[in-house]
């Protein structure tokens, strides 16, 4: 106790450093996912629109421990400094809460996700329907449980639909992680930390068009094909869940 340095960080989290035996080792061929799912099985998805009353449109999404809220504001006046534009602008911002991760974080903005979210949604929005104005898409990750970014995209597209922004189609996103010789869909944080590579597809399920494809790590062409098939199939199913959420919301408001 005496050797406690005074210039150490003011506080520290007393969580256990020594990991529980890892669920996955490189040599393992036979292993079980931390939440007991099959390799090609997604977590059950829960969506609800209208989570934030102050916004023009909003949605809440929960997949396992991953919980996000997205609010959409506008179309509203663009910043004064912006040049004239005859198509609408999109402005995205993603931030994390301080309690999103198991150790208390800084709760800062996530610049990378902000710009990637912009690019993933841009292609699905009919920007020409709101010239000279801006639509703001703000996201907050309440809890990070893995596959945060794909959940954010799907949730944001529901929020856009809730706000009445014209879309070509809903946007659904699903990620696949490569662990050794296995492909696991919709990875949780623990699996993401062990992955050799990841593949993320963002697509418009009814039109069967891809708006964003991100691949990291080393992949062979055949594995890419396999992973893409998996993702596209899951996106179609996710799209159905999202659609039914919108229908439900619409039927309750007309009642």
């Amino acid at each position: 106790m005496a050797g406690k340095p005074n210039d150490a960080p003011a506080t520290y989290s007393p969580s256990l450093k020594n990991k529980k035996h890892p669920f996955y080792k490189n040599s393992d061929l036979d292993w079980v996912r931390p939440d007991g799912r099959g390799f090609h099985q997604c977590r059950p998805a829960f969506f609800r629109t209208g989570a934030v009353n102050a916004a023009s449109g909003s949605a809440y999404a929960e997949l396992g421990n991953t919980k996000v809220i997205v609010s959409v504001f506008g179309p509203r006046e663009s910043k004064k400094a912006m040049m004239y534009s005859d198509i609408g602008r999109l402005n995205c911002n993603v931030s994390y809460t301080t309690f999103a991760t198991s150790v208390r974080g800084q709760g800062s903005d996530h610049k990378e996700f902000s710009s990637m979210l912009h690019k993933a949604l841009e292609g699905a929005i009919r920007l020409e329907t709101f010239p000279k104005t801006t639509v703001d898409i703000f996201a907050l990750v309440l809890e990070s449980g893995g596959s945060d970014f794909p959940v954010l995209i799907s949730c944001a597209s529901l929020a856009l639909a809730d706000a009445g922004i014209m879309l070509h189609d809903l946007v659904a996103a699903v990620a696949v992680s490569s662990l050794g010789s296995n492909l696991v869909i919709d990875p949780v944080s623990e699996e993401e930390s062990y992955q050799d590579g990841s593949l993320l597809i963002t697509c418009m399920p009814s039109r069967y068009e891809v708006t964003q494809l991100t691949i990291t790590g080393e992949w062979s062409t055949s594995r890419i094909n396999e992973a893409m098939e998996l993702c596209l199939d899951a996106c179609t199913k996710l799209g159905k869940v999202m659609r039914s959420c919108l229908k439900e919301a619409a039927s309750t408001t007309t009642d």
Partner: protein
Amino acid sequence: MGAQKNTGDWSSDMEIDAFRRLFPLRFYERHLTEAIRPDARPLKKCRDTSVAPGAVATADGSALAKIGSTTMLASIKMEVMTPSVDSPDEGNIAVEYYMPPICSPIVRPGRPAELAPVIAKQLSNTLLSSGMIDLKELSIISGKAAWMAYLDIYCLDADGALFDAALLSAVAAFSHLNIPAVSLNDEGKLTIVSEESNGEENVEKEPVNRDRRKLTISSIPLSLTCVLHKNYILADPTGEEESIMETSITTVLNTSDQLISLYKPGGPVLASTASIKECVSLTRQRIKELQDILSDSFASMDMN
């Protein structure tokens, strides 16, 4: 107003909406003379309120509070610190209040709401001065280690009475808080004793505090914000009401009926002693309601 056309319900709805936007104050005054508010509440009635303890899985204590559509999510994380020399046997509480851009159209990224630091300061003053929590209970080893409770409150939806909702979520989170059991490791740092205690190394290290425990919470501070306009007093204002009628009074009482704070940040209406008394007595009634809501929510949580 003006040319009122009665060509079906739809068009008259539009007229009211336009009137509301163009002449918000007159719109409200017309309601106030009828002793009713646009959301169909009597002047002194508060909105539906609910509390959900344990909303954040990663936190040691948490709660979600809703007053009308105003939503607050409070989370407490316990970290270890070296206590200050002045108070070697006391822990501390750090309060942060966030208004992320999702909560309101007036907050934009990079431009924090003016209101946020004001509410943060009020919250931290209220919690620390009310004596709700005995900081000595947060001590682990006198002079060596103590708990720092990081209370982070996120506003998820802003629609008036922000301080009331934030305070409600904060006290609910403290009631839900479980202080983890910790033990000393070889490096002189504290680690959490895992509940199954399967690790052999944990058994021999004498645990500093043996069980997860709750804080003893003496009289809880709770609050009510009222808006003043002319002679009218409106309890628990919505965001719209706050923006139109700018004078507000926030009263904080504790459950032993003592006044913790009274906050009237200027405004065009000068409050008379009578209206201040009225606000305090409204707060007293409101606190009874809130206590019932709190105890109900914890009772239903224990059953699950």
